[in-house]
């Protein structure tokens, strides 16, 4: 059940001969709160290659979300540089950053962040609107993305009519619709029960394996990190460990071993209203 480290904590080179997609060089992020300075990142250097599946772990406040925001071009480092696909992103203007977010990055959030009272299909279409695609192209791409997450039949449902897991799948479809080079997910399973979490990991693994999508996800749960290929452990704004996952779990194989609830609605309501723990905790299953 423990995760074995293949390489030491200082190893932070792109692994397995992947072409480099992300490179951080001595990135610092300092927040100013009045007089107080919060040093959220203290010199992070890191490379991520194409096709990697990285789980970022660490205690609360260790800087995981700060890192994700910088990787996602929502924020800029206070110091240091960030190369995405060979471009020094830290030098770009706001408009150029918006363009990169639109074209190269797909975001998945813990809170799903779907637009309320807007159909699943239109939620998925959102990034294509800002990409300037034609309505027909937008529609077909959004439908295709929904199909990839297995929700084509729910295209016209509103988020309030979907379970938490389904909402997160819509959010993943939205992240995929502009064919980004990287998918960033900050605690995507944080609000989901364990079976639904594994279903989400199944989708991410599938996208990573079959379509070569680069995935970086933040999680607190070791069980979730086990589905990734590589783990970065953060402490106090620094990378403390960086290792390849041995005995990587395959969600498709784990899923059949998980109990399916008779009353599916209970799960859906539970997942939707509160981050309720699954009826069966993961440690009991394995």
């Amino acid at each position: 059940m423990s995760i074995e480290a293949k390489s030491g904590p200082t190893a932070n080179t792109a692994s397995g001969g992947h072409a480099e997609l992300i490179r951080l060089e001595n990135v610092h992020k300092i927040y100013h709160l009045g007089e107080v300075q919060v040093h959220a990142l203290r010199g992070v250097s890191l490379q991520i290659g194409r096709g990697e599946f990285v789980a970022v772990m660490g205690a609360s406040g260790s800087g995981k979300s700060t890192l994700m925001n910088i990787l996602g071009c929502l924020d800029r480092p206070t110091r240091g540089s960030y190369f995405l696909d060979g471009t020094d992103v830290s030098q770009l203007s706001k408009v150029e950053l918006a363009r990169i977010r639109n074209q190269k990055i797909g975001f998945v959030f813990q809170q799903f962040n779907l637009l309320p009272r807007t159909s699943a299909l239109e939620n998925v279409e959102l990034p294509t609107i800002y990409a300037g695609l034609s309505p027909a192209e937008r529609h077909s791409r959004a439908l295709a993305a929904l199909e990839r997450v297995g929700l084509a039949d729910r295209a016209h449902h509103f988020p309030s009519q979907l379970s938490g897991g389904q909402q997160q799948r819509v959010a993943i479809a939205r992240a995929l619709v502009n064919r980004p080079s990287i998918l960033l997910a900050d605690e995507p399973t944080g609000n989901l029960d364990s079976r639904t979490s594994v279903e989400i990991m199944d989708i991410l693994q599938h996208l990573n394996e079959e379509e070569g999508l680069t995935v970086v996800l933040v999680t607190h749960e070791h069980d979730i990190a086990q589905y990734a290929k590589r783990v970065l452990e953060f402490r106090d704004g620094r990378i403390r460990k960086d290792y390849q996952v041995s005995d990587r779990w395959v969600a498709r194989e784990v899923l059949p071993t998980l109990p399916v609830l008779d009353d599916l609605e209970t799960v859906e309501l539970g997942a939707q209203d509160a981050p309720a723990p699954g009826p069966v905790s993961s440690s009991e299953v394995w």
Partner: protein
Amino acid sequence: MDFMNTLRIALRALSRNKLRSALTMLGIIIGVGAVIATVSIGQGAEYLIQQGIESLGTNAVFIAAGSNRAGARTGFWGVRTLTVEDMEAILREVPLIRSAAPVVFTRAQVVYQNQNWRPRIEGTTPEYFQIRRWGVQAGGIFSEDEVRSAANVCVLGVTVARMLFGNQDPIGQTIRIGEIPFRVVGVLEAKGQSAMGEDQDDRLIAPYTTVQRKIAGITWIHYINASAITKDAAQAAVPQIEALLRERHRIRNPEDDDFFVSTQSDVAEMATQTERVMNLLLGSIASVSLIVGGIGIMNIMLVSVTERTREIGVRMAVGATEADVRRQFLVEAVTMSMAGGVIGIASGLVGSWAIAKFLGWPTLISATAIVIATVVAAGIGILFGIYPAWKAAQLDPIEALRYE
């Protein structure tokens, strides 16, 4: 992001809070509606004034008794110095004046059998009908001889005829004013309302001699309706008439004049003056209500930006630029103000139709007012939408995404 998409998003956002959007638009609706309605009333009044001027003829000159002491018109009709002799002197000595008719007026009870009515009673000469271009629809008018002999004959306006006779033919019938019997010789053509809203058909016209001696008991006249040979002659005649009357009334200082002389151009001038004041008043009312409406829109847009902070964060995260967000909220504000404008125009039109129908005021729809109202409504949306839109665009995507 293209415009149609922005508009679609705006319409959807607005339709989500239908009642709120409607209440917000109310300020604009009322402002625009009031302007459209009042402009159409004003235009209707102006049309009537123009018509009145035309019906009197552009050659008309109006000489009224009245004094102007201490800078105020005092005792307008109480001045007793204007006489028929003055009129005859004008006709004799001012060749620019072609014809003139004296007018004395009063109000008195008129009785026919068991019907009675209290119209305006005017005493004049046959020239009156010619100068005013006012013909009879039945019977005829009285003659110069009847004026000279102060005969008891009269011509009725259609309102008086209707009130006293109903469907009966008044011609040849005898009515009484006080104790004096009058024979009805004619009924005037209908003229309808004047620009001031009074019924011009509510009058009885008799020889001035008869009215002076038998009804009003006076020797002077109230005003003279004169007609010059041309429009320019009317203007040129004014100083000549003034000089003549001053001489006849022994007035040295024009400030002591006991009469007024004016022409149709003066009336037209006054009408435009009135219109200008009216427009100014209208303009200020309109701007106040539109500003209030605009502030309402700004307020709701600010609320909307706060409510939709997360949505803004999501949009930015998936690639919306600041300009995209700004445009989205601006289009929303303009959509709201434009919709308010359109509804306002519609209700203004309905309102002026209702005023014309139920109050009987004349109204005239102005296309210019409609175009201006539309443009102003759009302008209000932009003006008051800019700040909320700017605020939305300034949001930090990370904080917006975290917003509860």
